[in-house]
């Protein structure tokens, strides 16, 4: 009994995190040094400064967790630091080729900014349940963020997709932040309206279909996704937003009919896009006939995809080694196609390790959702987990020709500040949720009516005269003792 109880009691496990973090930093910084060694760059103070900065940031994050969210999940931070470090190393490696210049420094800068923002969020937010109050504000924010890039004067058109804005010479992709605000909206909306959607409905066969008026928000989400797709030519984000909504509503109601309806709508949307959006049709053609000579040679053709496949094949089982391959042949090798660069230089063994890391990270996000006691937190964690896994699926599926390729970037790896910022903020929110999930309700003896562990224990007698509290208790103890002989030791 004793060991079982010991196991049941949650431990902070921050020391485990520290150990894994050291391993993670060794991998990230080691990869970068390895790049330098292999490309015969001198290992000078630049490497020390960059490695030191990464280590300092990761350890600062660890300390913030120790102070502010002691019971947060201990595996999320090491995994994310590993992926981020490997990303910087690969971007650094591509900076040695003629196509790219100084991207690694910018990525490191953005990593620092993002981690600082995530730490700030951890410290300021304290409890994820506060986000529930922002349900409808987040919806408004999402719409603004998504449609900001098409406002004339602010937006920029890069590579056929209008998803950028430029502020003072810096490009920023506001749609990345919309992932978070939309997840907050869906979680808040469904936590409020779940019962309504769940109770009403028509049973057809083994499935219960929702009423038409309850489908409203789903159609709204579909319209937003289609709007994003048509107006901005952004296939990946459209798929992600819609997938996010279907997944969250499925988790909220556990009705398979939502998945069916979602699938039908995706098919319809895909068909419409294929008919009317040139960009989408182009992507479909590339996907289906990648090795067609004509499509390979045309502008915006399948050159990138096919070269990516060749790159993966070149990597083989163990890869060419960091710095020995030629990943720069593929266009956008350090952002959209960075997975290919890893596949070529780390091989199947390295790339599959990274995919397993994503899988573990996803399972940790889901675990945080399973553990937390409030509905909103559960749905938010699931939504954010789905955001992560859909990004990975769309990117890896795209480059391996499982689905049409689209412009999403692999989380934490690819060069790009806005995606990095959004993903680190997601990490902060999930860490808060997992802290709420694993935290014991009582922190120390008797301090929790007002102390730090008190959140959630609303004592109706708090603030009243303590004599009254004692009187109630004493009377009842005495009465109880008189009526039935208590099983304790006091009478016998």
């Amino acid at each position: 009994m004793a060991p079982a109880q010991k196991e049941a009691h949650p431990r902070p496990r921050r020391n485990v995190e520290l150990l894994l973090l050291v391993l993670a930093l060794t991998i990230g910084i080691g990869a970068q040094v390895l790049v330098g060694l292999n490309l015969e760059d001198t290992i000078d103070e630049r490497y020390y400064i960059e490695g030191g900065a990464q280590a300092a940031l990761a350890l600062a994050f660890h300390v913030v967790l120790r102070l502010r969210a002691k019971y947060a999940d201990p595996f999320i931070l090491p995994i994310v630091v590993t992926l981020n470090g490997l990303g910087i190393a690969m971007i650094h490696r591509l900076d040695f080729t003629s196509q790219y210049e100084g991207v690694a420094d910018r990525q490191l800068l953005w990593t620092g900014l993002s981690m600082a923002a995530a730490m700030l969020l951890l410290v300021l937010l304290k409890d994820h349940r506060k986000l529930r109050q922002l349900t409808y504000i987040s919806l408004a924010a999402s719409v603004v963020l998504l449609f900001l890039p098409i406002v004339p004067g602010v937006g920029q058109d890069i590579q056929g997709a209008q998803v950028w804005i430029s502020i003072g010479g810096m490009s920023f992709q506001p749609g990345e932040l919309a992932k978070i605000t939309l997840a907050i909206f869906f979680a808040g909306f469904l936590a409020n309206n779940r019962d309504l959607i769940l109770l009403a409905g028509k049973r057809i066969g083994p499935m219960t279909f929702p009423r038409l008026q309850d489908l409203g928000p789903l159609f709204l989400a579909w319209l937003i996704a289609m709007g994003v797709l048509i107006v901005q030519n952004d296939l990946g984000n459209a798929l992600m937003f819609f997938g996010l909504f279907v997944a969250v509503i499925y988790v909220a109601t556990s009705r398979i009919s939502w998945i069916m309806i979602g699938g039908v709508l995706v098919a319809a949307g895909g068909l419409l896009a294929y008919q009317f959006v040139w960009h989408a049709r182009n992507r479909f053609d590339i996907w289906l006939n990648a090795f067609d000579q004509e499509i390979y040679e045309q502008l915006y053709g399948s050159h990138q995809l096919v070269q990516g496949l060749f790159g993966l094949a070149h990597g083989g089982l163990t890869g060419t080694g960091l710095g020995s391959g030629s990943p720069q042949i593929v266009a956008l090798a350090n952002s959209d196609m960075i997975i290919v660069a890893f596949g070529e230089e780390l091989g199947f063994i390295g790339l599959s390790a990274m995919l397993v890391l994503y899988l573990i990270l996803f399972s940790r996000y889901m675990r945080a959702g399973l553990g937390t006691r409030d509905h909103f937190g559960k749905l938010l964690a699931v939504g954010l987990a789905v955001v992560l896994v859909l990004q990975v699926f769309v990117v890896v599926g795209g480059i391996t020709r499982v689905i049409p390729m689209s412009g999403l970037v692999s989380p934490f790896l690819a060069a790009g500040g806005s995606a990095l910022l959004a993903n680190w903020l997601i990490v902060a929110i999930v860490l808060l949720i997992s802290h709420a999930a694993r935290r014991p309700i009582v922190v120390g003896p008797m301090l929790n009516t007002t102390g730090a562990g008190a959140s959630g224990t609303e004592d109706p007698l708090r603030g009243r005269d303590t004599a009254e509290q004692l009187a109630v208790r004493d009377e009842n103890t005495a009465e109880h003792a008189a009526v039935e002989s208590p099983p304790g030791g006091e009478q016998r």
Partner: protein
Amino acid sequence: MSELAITVLQFGLLLLLWILILSIIAAQGRDMMVSKRARTRANRSSQPPAPAPEQGGTPATVHHSGQTPRPRPKRLVISEGPLVGTEVELGSAPIMMGRAQECTVVLEDDYASGKHARLFPQGSRWFLEDLGSTNGTWLGDEQLTRASTVEPGDRIRIGKTVLELRT
């Protein structure tokens, strides 16, 4: 640096990646076995609750000496209702139960009030108290009118939810 050394280091990097994965999985242990644990608990609680230990027992019990005071129950388990299988660790603080989000135990039960009942510790016992709920709080077969003690195995019924204390 020689070609060989670099190759060895490259393989070392791949090895480190997998070592990281394996150590994460090893450190997770049984953490991912949520549903299985919940299910076994639900099964156990569907059996008729064991009579409260040593109730009306013979005078020759260990507790008789009075040297070892009985420990206060440490867990609150939901044995029936929508949240069946949920467990809450009890410390030394009062626990609020109800539908309101600020409650310690948030019940997803349409028959529970916002702030339905309160469980508070006193000595080696937990006391249950109704907070003026609409549908009342039941301890065993009786509706609570005032705060009274709860023993491990007693059925606390709130709406459609039944909770039990466990040691």
